[in-house]
């Protein structure tokens, strides 16, 4: 079973439908036990880093994700759901810097390009050891964000370039994450979701 963590507003219906295309049963939940116990957990994320973190903490999402990591259960972060896995972000909330989960070291920084947000389909320089991108190495994925992580993690690091390189996807033993939206990246995105789900 795949659980999609519901901890705020935004479009998670598309994510739900996209993950339902795999052979797994999909639930959308904010319940601790359901989210902690699922074979796979998807952590979506929209809006600002700080407000996302605050909403996540309200449902003990930090504990859920860390408990899963210890128990070697797989988690996939999407967009801001990737960013919050790092220590902190340049994106402030009411002038304040907000702490992330710190599962991966490093800081999420603002992209340096003439046009921000980075919005649309872009290519990914796929890590040779990547499992997520198997068979879809040359495809484009849909990005919409103004901040991104840049410090490589212990695992597979795949990069995108927009006013400089940044992490498009990271894959560690249990926690993986993508800065783009696989549920909005057409057939390529659905293939990536299938790759992740088949490893559960």
């Amino acid at each position, binding site marked *: 079973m795949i659980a999609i963590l519901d901890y705020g507003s935004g479009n998670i*219906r598309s994510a739900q439908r996209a993950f339902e295309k795999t052979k797994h049963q999909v639930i959308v939940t904010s319940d601790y036990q359901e989210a902690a116990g699922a074979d796979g957990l998807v952590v979506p994320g929209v809006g600002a880093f700080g407000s996302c973190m605050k909403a996540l903490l309200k449902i003990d999402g930090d504990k859920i994700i860390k408990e899963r990591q210890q128990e070697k259960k797989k988690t996939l972060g999407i967009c801001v759901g990737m960013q919050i896995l790092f220590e902190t972000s340049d994106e402030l909330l009411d002038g304040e810097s907000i702490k992330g989960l710190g599962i991966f070291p490093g800081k999420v920084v603002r992209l340096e390009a003439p046009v921000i947000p980075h919005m649309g389909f*872009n290519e990914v320089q796929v890590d040779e050891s990547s499992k997520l991108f198997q068979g879809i190495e040359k495809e484009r994925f849909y990005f919409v964000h103004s901040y991104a992580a840049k410090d490589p993690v212990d695992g597979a690091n795949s990069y995108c370039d927009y006013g400089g390189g940044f992490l498009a996807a990271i894959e560690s033993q249990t926690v993986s994450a993508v800065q783009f939206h696989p549920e909005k990246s057409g057939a390529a995105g659905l293939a990536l979701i299938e790759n992740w789900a088949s490893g559960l």
Partner: protein
Amino acid sequence: MSLATRIIPCLDVKDGRVVKGINFLDLVDAGDPVEMAQIYNNEGADEITFLDITASSQGRSTTLEVVRRSADQLFIPLTVGGGISSTDDVNQLLRAGADKVSINTAALKRPELINEISESFGSQVLVISIDAKRSRSSSGFEVTTHGGSISTGIDALDWIKEAIERGVGEILLNSMDTDGTRAGYDLELIRLVRAISPVPIIASGGAGDISDFAKALESGADALLAASVFHFGIYRISDIKRDLDRKGFTVRQGNQIGQN
């Protein structure tokens, strides 16, 4: 490695039905926005926009149903515009499966709405739709409403600057002078807005000839929206992408995977 230009077909939807004529013969139901969106998706559209021109509140719940059905089948971004005047409206649409919303008149009436939406959901969900028209205004363009028929007296560039400061993530730039003419996008308008806008610009209004799309990109647009050239089957999305590719612009070759 570079970002692909987005090609965005726009569908006018009223009471859950597509309003403008559609010229594809292989449609089961030519009036169903979801089926139309699906066809555009298969043809390589990079996003879809629904413009809801429904007046009644009953019709609006029909729109939500259309958005829900789209999200069930469509795995590319969906923007919904028309009649949005509160964060509640936005929340309902996002929950139903929209990725972005576009606002127009409601933001002119109450500019704080821009701050409220971007603070609640992030600026990436918010598109400001501007109906610009040539006038004696300081930039040469003013903002209009009601399809260009009513002047607001607000200078288009001033309004765009304010909207960006308040937190919009993208500008849908409609030229009321070229809209429906198929005489080409208003390139001067695009150039003026590009000079002041750090957020993406979607050019809209006037696409007719296949060369119009590249010209809008050369003038500074990031994405290209069109309605009638697609609906009437004058060009397929793939025709436009082929032309852009030939001229050196980056495009996404849509959805080859899994389609044997």
